[in-house]
């Protein structure tokens, strides 16, 4: 088991290096010379220019620049934002809890509804419920979520006034210093009455929007995986043994059907991050996705570079974890490799 773990982890190291290489190259391809950006368009003396280039390390050979860059990254230096003058890493970790909180509840929504719905659809295969669910899930799967978000804001927030339009909490009524960065926890810690409800209220709509595509995917996957398992011999055996339907489905079928579903949940993390960019932009949710888009608008390339590197690292690490977990749930994989 330990060997498998080590081997799997080692496989991601080249990916990390390649990722660093790509962001390194990308930032050099971006239009606009960083020296010109700092000095302005007016001509300056060649000596000043050379000094600037030296300060930025741009007079070094490219391979040396890359090594320096990797060296900085390995020491946790992801650059400094041009706009806020803050370290990119610090900024990222200030904003990341917001994204994490949103993604967690989106996934909770998707799993909480998607898996039971998929199981019921499989058990009542061909029924009205099954057909309706598959229709809805196809729609959800095809949904442009940025439009879905606007539509829900239009109906639920604007017309019916059920939820707030944007943000994480009612900033006029509540203010407290972030402790964990997770608004739900911080609002409880703040001891201000109503703060928790306000935070929860703000979370509902964005979580539904971000959870829609995973929900559709999970419902479809659970249904087809469950159907496959239901026709297996061991399920028939369990039935023949005289076990209750509940036991047959809940214990014998569901546990096996969920194995591929767990992988799908893990694989959703990448698209969840992509979806977070859109959802956060629509709802003005102060997370890393919105920050990334704003960095582009402000031409804050160090932030963009660092942000993409960090988001991708999160995805790689989560995928690695899922892979390892999968090996634990399903021993067949572990020995197969």
């Amino acid at each position: 088991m330990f060997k498998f773990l080590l081997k799997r982890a080692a496989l991601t190291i080249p990916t990390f290096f390649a990722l660093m290489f790509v962001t390194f190259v990308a930032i050099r391809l971006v239009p606009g010379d960083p020296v010109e950006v700092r000095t302005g368009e007016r001509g300056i003396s060649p000596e000043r220019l050379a000094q600037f280039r030296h300060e930025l390390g741009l007079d070094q050979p490219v391979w040396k620049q890359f090594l320096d860059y990797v060296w900085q990254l390995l020491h946790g230096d992801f650059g400094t934002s041009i706009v806020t003058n803050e370290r990119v890493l610090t900024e990222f970790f200030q904003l990341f809890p917001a994204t994490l909180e949103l993604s967690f509840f989106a996934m909770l929504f998707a799993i909480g509804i998607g898996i039971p719905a998929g199981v019921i659809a499989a058990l009542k295969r061909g029924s009205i419920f099954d057909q309706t669910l598959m229709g809805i899930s196809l729609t959800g799967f095809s949904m442009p979520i940025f439009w879905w978000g606007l539509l829900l804001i239009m109906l639920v927030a604007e017309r019916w006034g059920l939820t707030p339009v944007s943000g994480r909490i009612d900033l006029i009524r509540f203010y407290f210093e972030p402790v964990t960065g997770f608004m739900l926890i911080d609002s409880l810690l703040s001891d201000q009455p109503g703060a928790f409800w306000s935070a929860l209220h703000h979370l509902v709509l964005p979580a539904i929007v971000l959870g829609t595509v995973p929900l559709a995917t999970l419902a479809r996957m659970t249904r087809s995986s469950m159907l496959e398992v239901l026709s297996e011999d061991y399920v028939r055996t369990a039935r023949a043994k005289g076990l209750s339907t509940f036991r047959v489905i809940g214990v014998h079928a569901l546990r096996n059907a969920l194995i591929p579903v767990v992988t799908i949940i893990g694989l959703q993390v990448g698209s969840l991050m992509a979806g977070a960019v859109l959802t956060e932009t629509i709802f003005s949710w102060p997370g890393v996705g919105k920050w990334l888009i704003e960095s582009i608008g402000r031409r804050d390339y160090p932030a963009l570079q660092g942000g993409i590197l960090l988001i991708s690292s999160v995805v790689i690490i989560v995928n690695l974890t899922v892979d390892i977990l999968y090996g634990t749930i399903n021993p067949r994989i572990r020995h197969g490799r």
Partner: protein
Amino acid sequence: MAADISVVDTAPAIPAPAGPLRAFWASFSENRGAVIGMLVLLLIVLLAVFAPLVAPYSPTEQFREFSKLPPAWSEGGDWRYVLGTDALGRDMLSRLVYGARVSLFIGLAVMVVSVAVGVALGLVAAFAGGITDVAIMRVMDLIISVPGLVLAILIVSVLGPSLANTIVAVTIVFLPRYVRLVRASAMGEIGKDYVTAARVAGVGRLRLMASTVLPNCLAPLIVQAALGVSEAILEAAALGFLGLGAQPPTPEWGSMLADSREFIRSNPWIVTLPGLAILVTVISINLMGDGLRDALDPKLKRS
């Protein structure tokens, strides 16, 4: 009665292999959703192709005195502008119809380029093996490790936002799936007897790749390519929505949505229509893709 009809219908097809196309159609048309999807898509394609004939106005022409008109059937509407006008007084119907051109073009362009490059790289990886294989697959792993939209954003911010760069960005994002698919199915075929036979018969490497092995890998590829079109349309619309895709005044559905964001409260139809257009197009392609999968790739058939 219904049983009788179906027997009559399938009777000519029973005398065994009635041509692959016929067998395919028989299987495809069994899926009602797929046929509906195909018809809707056909309609959208026709609208896109004949946009200059269908659209009453140019998509960029501004009727300043008629800005933000609601659709004709609602109060205050004007039948000259059937689906209303946007904030600049441009006719919504015309913009949506021309938008179909843009979105379908993006979807098709991404699909064609990424399938072509993907097939080439996948076959090379499968046939060459060794370091070439490892190198190609590592690069693909890298692309996959960055969330699709985030990678597309990075590429577009390097190249600059435009329609052409949207296509480049989304193509790169979609490349790995085709490479992986072709490589995996080609590897499965290489060891088979018919390939060895062709090799012994002196078939050259290129021909072995392209005309011996490739046709046997096509079924899953076609399915993936069909579904890839709809995903490409969604991804491009998302980029457009973020202001990183097609630039104004191009009537692209995603950027139309972005322009309309401030009118959520006052003029909801400006927001509703472009999104509906995206949704309908994507659903119909996905329905068709499901049908294709069932018809072409029995192994993947969803129960």
